[in-house]
């Protein structure tokens, strides 16, 4: 609630500054001008926004699948851990603004290089908390399962996999933040549509308000996606969160 008040104060201050200083709208558009741009360019903004949103969703989806598989692989096998972990760390050191144009050269202006870059950026923040959660399972719990005669698969399915879910959610939330940036970087390296492309086009045309509107849309999308994940996590994993429910006597 207080965040809304702070936001309103910033918007009001911004509007007042633009009006009182008489600064040109193509240098710094007022919030009212941005709102007008959203209304005027709704169709244009929306068609480019859906492209970028699709890139982010597909990229994060791919990163979730690969990250989960990677976390399980290094959890189950020490050999794989030694073989793969350095590569996972290496994936995070790849300078995205430099690799993005190379992937565009390779795969063209389409969807593929964008998904690859979002997945590459999001893979690491997913694999690390998931693998850590798998590792943090109490060894005494594994011993208990052994005394029950549980197979490796049963221990994984009944004990380790549920324990890893909070880690997977943490990774997914982190990747929403970094995935958005990755998608824009990928689009700026070469594309014919998407928010990154739209902003690139808008500035030389002095459509600064449209560029701001595009940025705003993408931010709202990221926040909504993050909130959705947080909500799903609270709903699906209530045990992983401090509860307000009291303790039985």
């Amino acid at each position, binding site marked *: 609630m207080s965040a809304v008040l702070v936001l309103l104060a910033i918007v009001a201050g911004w509007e007042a500054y633009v009006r009182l200083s008489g600064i040109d709208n193509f240098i710094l558009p007022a919030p009212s001008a941005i709102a007008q741009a959203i209304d005027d360019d709704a169709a244009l903004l929306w068609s480019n926004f859906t492209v970028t949103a699709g890139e982010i969703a597909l990229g994060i989806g791919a990163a979730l699948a690969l990250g989960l598989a990677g976390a399980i692989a290094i959890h189950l096998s020490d050999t794989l851990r030694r073989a793969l972990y350095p590569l996972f760390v290496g994936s995070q050191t790849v300078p995205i603004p430099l690799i993005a144009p190379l992937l565009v050269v390779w795969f063209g202006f389409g969807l593929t290089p964008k998904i690859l870059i979002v997945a590459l950026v999001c893979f690491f923040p997913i694999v690390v908390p998931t693998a850590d959660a798998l590792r943090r399972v*109490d060894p*005494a*719990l594994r*011993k*208990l*399962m*052994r*005394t*029950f*005669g*549980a197979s490796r698969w*049963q221990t994984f399915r*009944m*004990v380790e996999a*549920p324990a890893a879910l909070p880690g997977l959610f943490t990774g997914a939330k982190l990747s929403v933040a970094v995935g958005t940036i990755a998608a824009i970087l990928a689009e700026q390296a070469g594309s014919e549509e998407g928010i990154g492309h739209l902003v690139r086009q808008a500035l030389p045309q002095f459509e600064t308000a449209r560029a701001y509107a595009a940025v705003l849309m993408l931010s709202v999308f990221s926040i909504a996606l993050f909130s959705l994940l947080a909500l799903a996590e609270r709903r699906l*994993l*209530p*045990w*992983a969160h401090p*509860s307000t*429910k*009291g*303790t*039985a*006597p």
Partner: protein
Amino acid sequence: MQTPVTAPRQAVAMEPRTPAVSLQDVVKRFAPVRRGADAVVALDGVSLEVAPGEIVAVVGPSGCGKTTLLELVCGLTDADAGSVQAAPAALMAQSDLLLPWASALDNAALALRVAGESREAGRERAGALLQDFGIAGFEHARPRELSGGMRQRVAFARTLLAGRPLLCLDEPFASLDALTRQEMQSWLAGALSRDPRSVLLVTHDVEEALVLGDRVVVLSPRPGRVVATLGVDAPRPRRRTDPELVALRERVFEELRT
């Protein structure tokens, strides 16, 4: 004092039933913590036996290898020397080890699910036992919503439902406050009298050992050795203030001091 591993044991000759647990001169060492240091000897020639249906309590100071003893009996680790024979055992650890995402019902049914029973069948059997254990109304609560005593009851229900003839209890009430611990001790004594099992109970609480055990085995500080075995013949239900138990307690403390 201890018979060699290969020698025929008199107890077996006199007792037609095989013991639930039979340890003979068991030695367990752990690899040194740092290079160059000596190996840590956790157990140094421990022999003890648990007859079917008997409750044997093992007491000893912290670090005398009590938990190692139970892990040997449960087959979680191997002895470096000596022989370990034990009936199939279910282990109940110091912390309740309940799954935080599962209800009391599903936690209690964990061993049944591992054994391949359906979710419904497991819940039905677990529900009946939890009812007996005074958890009625909390079957669907998650562990965090249960009190410490309730969590230990659920953990004990899970141990019983594993269906093993031998129960290995590792300081089952150490994490509870003194009052709840006493309550839980008399509750456990009652539960075991209704559903008798062979029990190997490990504790550093001498009173707990005397209230629950048919026999009390006293271990020395590391390396763990058996320094005394005391029979507890006091009638049940027992109270920690019974004169017999008070007298025995002094004897156990004396043995622990030597």
